[in-house]
């Protein structure tokens, strides 16, 4: 041992590694000084990154035209589906949900936030937003956009929060298929997360779920409010390991590129676990 540390360079290595491990342990135990220190160090870089993202995200006229055509077609498909399957009240409520969360949900307390950091090393596209406990954000608060549920706050510091997306297996949210009222659990799968898709698992083998159905949160667990749109069923698949059926869901929001989100800091019945018999089936 003494021989090993006779070399000055090895002493420096041992000291550097000890310092890294000490800081890492302090950070992992939630030491606010370490967390704030890292946040301070990376915030400037993150701001630059966010500004560059905005510039890079600007679309050309042709791209906007193409997107407009696609959205027009999708809106028409959705409208047809809504007219076919739901009454006027449901349609009205859904449109309010799409375009004005707070008007249709007066109990929602929302906090607009901006995505400041992403990393290519994260395999499920989680990101960091520019608001933390000082803005009223708490652990496990739902995160959404006008297009539906995006994820939840998985860690929070004073000035920033990390959001685990619905593409991650770490997210588990009770959900129902609006058309058939079949229920299940929304959770990410590595096999589809690259394509920006998530899945509805634990569904009944006889559930009449079909492509094109809209999946919303059930609100059973008390973490997410009921009727938050998760996405549209893309296809049904069979798990190759346990032969159970699951639905692949395409979220309405592009999770991999989202830059502006809102955090739902409070809503009616937050934290109250509903019995399954009371689940929302509207």
């Amino acid at each position, binding site marked *: 041992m003494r021989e090993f540390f006779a070399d000055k*360079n090895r002493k*420096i*290595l041992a000291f*550097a*590694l000890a310092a*890294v*491990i000490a*800081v*890492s342990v302090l*950070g*992992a135990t939630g030491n606010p000084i*370490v*967390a704030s220190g*890292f*946040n301070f*160090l*990376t915030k400037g*870089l*993150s701001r*630059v*990154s966010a500004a*560059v*993202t905005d510039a*890079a*995200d600007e679309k050309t006229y042709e791209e906007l035209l193409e997107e407009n055509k696609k959205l027009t077609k999708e809106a028409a498909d959705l409208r047809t589906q809504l007219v076919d399957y739901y009454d006027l009240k449901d349609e009205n409520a859904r449109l309010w949900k799409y375009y004005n969360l707070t008007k249709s949900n007066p109990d929602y307390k929302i906090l607009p936030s901006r995505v400041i*950091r*992403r*990393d*290519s*090393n*994260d*395999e*499920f596209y*989680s990101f*960091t937003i520019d608001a933390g406990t000082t803005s009223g954000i708490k652990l496990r608060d739902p995160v959404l956009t006008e297009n539906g549920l995006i994820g939840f706050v998985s*860690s929070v*510091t004073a000035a*920033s929060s*990390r959001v685990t997306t619905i593409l991650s*297996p*770490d997210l588990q949210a009770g959900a129902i298929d609006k058309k058939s009222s079949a229920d299940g659990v929304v959770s990410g799968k*590595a*096999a589809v997360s*690259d*394509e920006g898709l998530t899945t509805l698992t634990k569904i009944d083998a006889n559930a009449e779920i079909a492509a094109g159905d809209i999946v919303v949160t059930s609100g059973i667990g008390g973490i997410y409010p009921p009727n938050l749109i998760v996405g549209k069923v893309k296809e049904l698949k069979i798990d190759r390991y346990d032969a159970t059926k699951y639905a692949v869901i395409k979220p309405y929001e592009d999770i*991999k*590129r989202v830059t502006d989100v809102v955090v739902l800091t409070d809503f009616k019945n937050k934290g109250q676990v509903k019995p399954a018999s009371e689940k929302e089936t509207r």
Partner: protein
Amino acid sequence: MERRYTFFLYAAYSLELLLLFILQTTPLLIPELFGGKPLLMIPAVVTVSLMEEQVPALFFGLAGGALLDLGCSDNLGYYTITLTLICFLLGFIFRDYMVVSFLNAMGFTSAVTLVTVFFYFIFFILLSGRADFSYFVSHCLSRILYTIVCTVPLYFINKFLFRNLRDF
């Protein structure tokens, strides 16, 4: 030992790491290959370590690893420790036993990328039950190859910086 004036050289390396961090964490700046983006910090700090002494190599490994860790979490961890150790070892090997060349740089970067990403997959993805081994083939391998390809420009950039700024 020959005295070297390294302030501008180290400042240039540091600036390079910060730029690579921004490039890596900003969506759309680098095209994705099969859903993966390169881990630019690894070839950057490995090629720096080939040309530098052990202690500077150690600190650039630590800085690159810390940026890689902080980019995807709020704490230091796996990449900080592994890259610190690896860069220190590379500094030692290339000081006494090996010659800096393009082929050596490609070989060592490939090995370091493969080993670090593989063990990251084992510890943080496979053992935590988030995905099975097919995920490594479908997702991690493309990321490793993409990272290795990025070694080519980074090797020549760092070689250029080393030659032109070491005694500036």
